[in-house]
């Protein structure tokens, strides 16, 4: 006993007191910082209801649930009410009406116009004029229909008259005209509008807007399927939209309006647009949750924290599909992907400029194994015509097959022999051919496989991994031998469609190779751009695909399916090749069903 009193000697007590004070200080410190952090989003709508779910009882429910046997599987309709912001305006039925989508496309800043991925998500609140239907045709969305005249220079769009902004104003053709001109002046990637738009007139009579361009352009309807229509009376005041950021509500005319952007919680919240006259969506709120780590997204799907998955121009990771199948309450929407992964040789550099050499390369790749390993069965061996079957005017060209012997013969016949007998073929200049495959980290596995295939036919190959920025610099300066890259759905439709945008040397851009100068190809592209007549377009499309099959400017590696998992409790998903499930039809048709 004496010792304990002894222990509480003056010095030690002071020391304990000091540590306790320090701990309290640290706690208050992080509270103040946190409150300043939360207050940082000052224009958050203050009616953000502080959820009644305190940390303590949430922890208790978790632990209770843990011991009640379900190992980590929380039913979405289970006893734990989600603390989403919407559960306050809970409609009559017990479960809350919130549709949650998981996505890996994390937005960097809360700028509707400035951030490209936020621009895509904003299609729900500010839908563009046109949209692409399931078969790949461009049809009207905000505009009922459109008409083209004067040799493809005058485009007239007839706007639907039952559209209202979420602040009650009516959607007018002035809004559409303002939005298109606004993008032209203010955003660099829409600067082509500024250069080519002569004038634009609005007629209230038939609720239409007409754009007159100074030169014929057949793809205006395609381009207008990507620009979100903004309310003129709101955005007029904003001088520099690219730099304008706000987390607060944006005025939208779609079925939902963008209510809150919460970067720290990593989610977007869309509320039902009270003035929406179209088909009433079932859900009060749509939440888009950002997951920078795909495994965590799969976990969210398994735990019911998310109902479906969306990735722009990409599929749900094939390796995670089996996990969702095991849970048994997921269905999968499969659509052949318009984009594909391809091997792009540097056409400006020997020996890749020699078509025979490219043909040999094409024959040396084991497409079956590549498809099996990369897409785990959700992909197929591609045709030499490069364009996947999901595209309009698809032409069946001859399939690529794996025949290393044929490849070696082609090389020998084309004059690449192994004179010094070291097992490596020499190029026309007599030196050993050293292929350097330039890849980005996410194509590492593909690069390894290609490396091994080329080694088998006597070409010494090496991998060079670089980060995406270095890749762009090296690609634009043609400082590479071969490189593996992908095409996106929009990229395939770009320029004169069917992937021509990637090869036409007259076009620059981040993802494009711009390495094909063959005049025949360039003429073919110009012909496609000059006509809107479908029969002519089909003829040129077939010519283009035959050109790809004969010359192999790029060797497609595999055609993959874009797979979108969705919870069985929901039905009515609708996907289009351009934006997958993220379109108005999905959000207005999806209903909750008791599986």
């Amino acid at each position: 006993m004496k010792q304990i009193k002894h222990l509480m000697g003056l010095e030690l007590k002071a020391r304990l007191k000091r540590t306790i004070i320090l701990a309290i200080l640290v706690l208050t410190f992080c509270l103040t910082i946190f409150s300043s952090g939360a207050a940082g989003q000052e224009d958050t709508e203050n009616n953000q209801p502080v959820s009644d779910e305190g940390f303590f009882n949430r922890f208790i429910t978790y632990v209770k649930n843990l011991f009640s046997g379900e190992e980590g599987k929380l039913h979405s309709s289970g006893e734990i009410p989600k603390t989403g912001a919407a559960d306050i305006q809970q409609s009559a039925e017990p479960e809350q009406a919130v549709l949650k989508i998981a996505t890996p496309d994390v937005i960097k800043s809360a700028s509707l116009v400035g951030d490209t991925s936020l621009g895509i998500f904003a299609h729900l609140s500010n839908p563009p004029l046109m949209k692409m239907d399931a078969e790949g045709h461009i049809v009207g969305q905000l505009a009922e229909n459109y008409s083209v005249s004067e040799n493809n220079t005058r485009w007239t769009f007839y706007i639907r008259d039952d559209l209202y902004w979420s602040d009650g104003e009516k959607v007018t053709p002035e809004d559409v005209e303002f939005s298109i001109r606004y993008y032209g002046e203010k955003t660099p990637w829409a600067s082509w509008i500024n250069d080519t738009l002569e004038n634009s007139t609005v007629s209230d009579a038939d609720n239409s807007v007409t754009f007159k361009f100074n030169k014929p352009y057949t793809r205006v309807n395609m381009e207008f399927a990507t620009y979100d229509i903004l309310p003129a009376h709101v955005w007029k005041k904003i001088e520099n939209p690219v730099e304008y950021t706000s987390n607060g509500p944006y005025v939208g005319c779609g079925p939902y309006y963008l209510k809150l952007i919460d970067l720290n919680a990593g989610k977007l919240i869309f509320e039902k647009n009270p003035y929406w006259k179209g088909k009433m969506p079932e859900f009060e709120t749509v939440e888009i949750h950002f997951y920078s780590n795909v495994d965590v997204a799969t976990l969210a799907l398994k735990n019911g924290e998310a109902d479906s998955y969306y990735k722009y121009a990409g599929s749900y990771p094939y390796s995670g599909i089996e996990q969702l199948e095991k849970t048994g309450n997921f269905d999968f929407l499969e659509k052949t992907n318009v984009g594909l992964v391809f091997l792009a040789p540097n056409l400006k550099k020997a020996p890749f400029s020699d078509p025979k050499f490219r043909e040999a390369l094409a024959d040396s790749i084991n497409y079956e194994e590549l498809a099996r390993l990369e897409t785990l069965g959700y992909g197929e061996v591609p045709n030499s015509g490069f364009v996947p079957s999901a595209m309009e005017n698809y032409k069946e060209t001859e399939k690529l097959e794996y025949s290393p012997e044929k490849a070696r013969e082609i090389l020998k016949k084309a004059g690449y022999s192994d004179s010094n007998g070291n097992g490596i073929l020499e190029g026309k200049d007599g030196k050993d051919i050293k292929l350097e495959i330039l890849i980005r980290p996410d194509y590492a596995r593909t690069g390894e496989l290609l490396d091994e295939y080329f080694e088998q036919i006597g070409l010494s190959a090496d991998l060079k991994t670089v980060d995406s920025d270095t890749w762009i610099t090296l690609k634009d300066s043609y400082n590479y031998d071969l490189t593996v890259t992908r095409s996106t759905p929009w990229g395939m439709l770009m320029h004169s469609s069917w992937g021509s945008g990637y090869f036409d040397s007259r076009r620059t851009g981040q993802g494009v190779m711009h390495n094909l100068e063959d005049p025949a190809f360039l003429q073919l592209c110009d012909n496609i751009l000059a006509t809107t007549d479908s029969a002519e377009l089909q003829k040129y499309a077939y010519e283009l695909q035959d050109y790809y099959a004969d010359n192999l400017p790029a060797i497609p590696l595999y055609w993959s399916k874009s797979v979108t998992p969705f919870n069985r409790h929901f039905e009515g998903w609708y996907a289009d090749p351009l934006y997958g499930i993220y379109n108005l039809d999905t959000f207005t048709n999806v209903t909750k069903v008791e599986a």
Partner: protein
Amino acid sequence: MKILPRNTLLERNTLLERNTLLERNTLLERNTLLERNTLLERNTLLERNTLLERNTLLEVRDLEVSFQGMETVTVLSGISFSIKESETLALVGETGCGKSVVAHAIMNLLPPESRVKGNIEFRGKSLSEMNEKEMAKIRGREIAIIFQNPSLALNPVYSIGHQLVEPLCVHQKEKKKTALYRVALALKRMGFVNFSECMNYYPSWCSGGMNQRFLIAASTILNPALLIADEPSKGLDKKCITELEAELKNLKMESKSALLLISHDLDFVRRLADRIAVMYAGEIVELANSSSLFENPLHPYTRGLLNSLPEKGFIPIPGFSPPLNSLPSGCRFHPRCPLREKRCIRVHPEIKETGEKAVRCFLYP
């Protein structure tokens, strides 16, 4: 070749030892100390003869200490002596004969791998059987120790005041304020003029001498019954030693505390000690009161020691004291003993008590 006597060599080392500005301004204190010094001389004489009636404070009976390192080394064997109330016993011997181990053994401060045999009784209570807790209660309150290297013995990161207050707080649970006041008083008694400033100095700022006096103040603040001074004079220059002497004498006078003085400096010991025990190679070879030891030393080693004093002609003892892990057979002094006989080499002599004296040598059967 005349070898410089050891302690002048010592002085050059102490000069190197940090000796800061403060040292100089305590000039005025020094003369106050000198008068008190002469006063003390007179009454120690009359006091010496009342030594016999007081009861024994500390009884050490054939203490043996060995260390289990790579191989077991017996550092001390057959040590027995006793100290009466307010009596000063000095333990004298060359460096390496285990004097400090005795002090540590008494205070039970030896490292864990040491093995202690024999019995140490303090006021009837046997110290060797006590566990750490009970021992902690005695240390500092009843037995205090002054280590030899004052600068290292004081904690470098705490102020002097804080360290002096500690024994009071630990043992007597005093409030910081009253304890500080008592410390100030003790420093004033020690002769410090600027004691309030000294309280918040740090050991690294003061010289060796200053630190030594702080140590003494710290150890004697609870006026312990027994004070063990382990080589207090080592590392101090001449004038500090005289001050230290005055200090210890003053201490014996006022607090009546017994003093176990461990040193190798014979002059210092002669002036202070009532009885002196001479140690050689881990055992006591002669025990006598100081005056008789200096007049007629019995043991050849004691004689050799006295002859090596400056006033006796600097005659050093040939050879070196044996390392403790390889002791010679028989009498441990025989390799260096001029009066060596055959039996000294074979048989190890026992210590023989003759009245006040005790000696371990065959010359005195």
